[in-house]
């Protein structure tokens, strides 16, 4: 967790418009810069990072070394590509910016992204390197983009002139190696000579590789236990609250609202109730839609109570949030909660609605984002039979599973 002030030198010359790194050299560079800033600020909260551009009209400092990650990320927006990279001037300005850092106890480091050809010769670069070494500034170079002959050697000479007991590194990233950030994650540039930064790097690598955080609520309990706990507690509370709301709603449903309005409202409530009525300790690990549907179908086939584990995880959370977000839904919920309950349920009404396939199809086709010919939807429809009290809840669970991704489009409550 070394205390460090870093200046990142970005290459925004015309050469970075090229698309041999996806989506473009410049964009790949920007992603890598974002990752590096995050890693640095996370490995030590007092670390500062600054950014400057080397091409364009001239060397320009976008942000002086700061520990505010938001400011750094914001300044990366709206950068224009053009001009020619001036490596020597860029390094000198970076050195100057570091010299005037606020906390003199920080070690000085410069990270250079070199995407365009290097027009300076080796001698000049070595002199620059020696000057950096004399003032104990470390230098990391990312050699990507343009493969000039002589460029790797020049940059190697520069880094070895600066290098003092292995604090400076150079990484060559050829175009074929995929995303620039992924390659960089495993290098010492990221891992900070193998110390605290590696924790962040490992987490980032895992996230990048799997595409999913794999943790409950997307937060690593090791990294942020309080946040993970808070999320879990609020989820439980929400479920409990909805459960009690749903009980009142069920009774209202049994009263049998004829208007599609209240029925729809209660249906949506039954849906959000079904979520809490399921087991509490559900881990949000499956967000594969097909898997969700399969499980929902299995549930509707078997005794619903038997297979309540696994099932509809994250989507429930989405739904309850979606319900809360939509004002009209909230109003509808309130309406039903306030209704005084009559004990008799008119369950048959609900079942009839569901069994009426044509009605279901028409409802479904009116909903944006749902294609009635989607095999998943058809399966869901086919599986619906008037089987029991929990059936309508499960069926609408399926429906909302499909809609779960477009949570704002839950428009059942609006008068059709």
């Amino acid at each position: 967790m070394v205390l460090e002030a870093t200046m990142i030198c970005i290459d925004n010359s015309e050469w970075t418009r090229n698309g041999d790194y996806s989506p473009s050299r410049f964009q790949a560079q920007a992603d890598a810069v974002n990752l590096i800033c995050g890693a640095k600020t996370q490995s030590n909260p007092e670390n500062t990072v600054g950014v400057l551009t080397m091409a364009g009209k001239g060397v320009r400092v976008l942000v002086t070394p700061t520990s505010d990650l938001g400011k750094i990320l914001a300044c990366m927006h709206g950068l224009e590509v053009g001009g020619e990279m001036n490596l020597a001037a860029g390094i000198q300005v970076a050195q100057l910016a570091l010299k005037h850092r606020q906390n003199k106890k920080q070690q000085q480091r410069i990270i250079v992204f070199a995407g365009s050809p290097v027009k300076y010769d080796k001698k000049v670069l070595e002199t620059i390197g020696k000057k950096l070494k004399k003032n104990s500034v470390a230098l990391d170079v990312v050699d990507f983009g343009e493969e000039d002959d002589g460029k790797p050697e020049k940059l190697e000479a520069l880094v070895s002139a600066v290098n003092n007991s292995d604090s400076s590194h150079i990484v060559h990233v050829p175009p074929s190696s995929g995303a620039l950030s992924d390659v960089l994650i495993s290098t010492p540039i990221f891992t900070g000579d193998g110390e605290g930064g590696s924790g962040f790097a490992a987490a980032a690598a895992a996230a990048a590789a799997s595409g999913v955080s794999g943790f409950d609520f997307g937060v690593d309990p090791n990294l942020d236990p309080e946040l993970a706990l808070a999320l879990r507690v609020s989820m439980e509370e929400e479920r409990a609250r909805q459960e009690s709301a749903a009980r009142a709603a069920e009774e209202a449903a049994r009263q049998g609202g004829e208007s599609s309005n209240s029925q729809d409202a209660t249906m949506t409530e039954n849906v959000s109730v079904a979520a809490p009525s399921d087991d509490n300790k559900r881990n949000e690990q499956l967000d594969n839609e097909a898997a969700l549907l399969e499980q929902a179908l299995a549930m509707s086939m078997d005794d619903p109570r038997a297979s309540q584990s696994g099932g509809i995880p994250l989507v429930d959370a989405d739904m309850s949030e979606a319900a809360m977000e939509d004002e009209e839904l909230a109003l509808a919920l309130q309406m039903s909660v306030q209704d005084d309950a009559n004990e008799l349920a008119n369950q048959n009404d609900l079942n009839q609605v569901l069994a009426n396939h044509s009605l279901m199809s028409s409802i479904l086709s009116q909903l944006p984002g749902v294609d009635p010919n989607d095999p998943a939807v058809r399966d869901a429809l086919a599986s619906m039979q008037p089987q029991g009290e929990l059936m309508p809840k499960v069926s609408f669970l399926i429906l909302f599973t499909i809609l779960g991704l477009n949570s704002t489009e839950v428009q059942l409550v609006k008068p059709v």
Partner: protein
Amino acid sequence: MACLHDHSCEEHDCSSDFSLYKHIDLPKVSALNEAAPGSVKSVFKAWEQRLDSSGAHLESNDGDPELLVFIPFTSDVKIKSISVVGGDTGTSPAKMRAFINRDGIDFSDAQSMRPVQEWELAENLHGVLEYQTRYVLISYPYFISHLLLFMNYS
């Protein structure tokens, strides 16, 4: 031990008068442009060992005869004189500049800023030469917590 001051050294122990060694914050001593990182710490010795040159030397990088030594003290001190022992055959420092209580000075600053005091050094292989500091440094406002010595060999 040849002392240049005007009393006889046999009677009392000069070391306490003449050494701030105990007050130097040795772990935090650092230098810029040293050939071997960390060698600067070994050149500060107690009075009794001041002529013992068997340990590591502080050398600048090849071809670049400048050194910047940063010396923090554990308590505020007043410095009356400085003595520098250099190598022979032209490897002793020729000029020295002192800056006090400043952080983050690098070589360009050391060349351009006005130092508190500047000396021309003569070859001093046996540590007999001491360079007095200006009276201003010894008088009241100048309690010193950091001392920065810039040494030039040319």
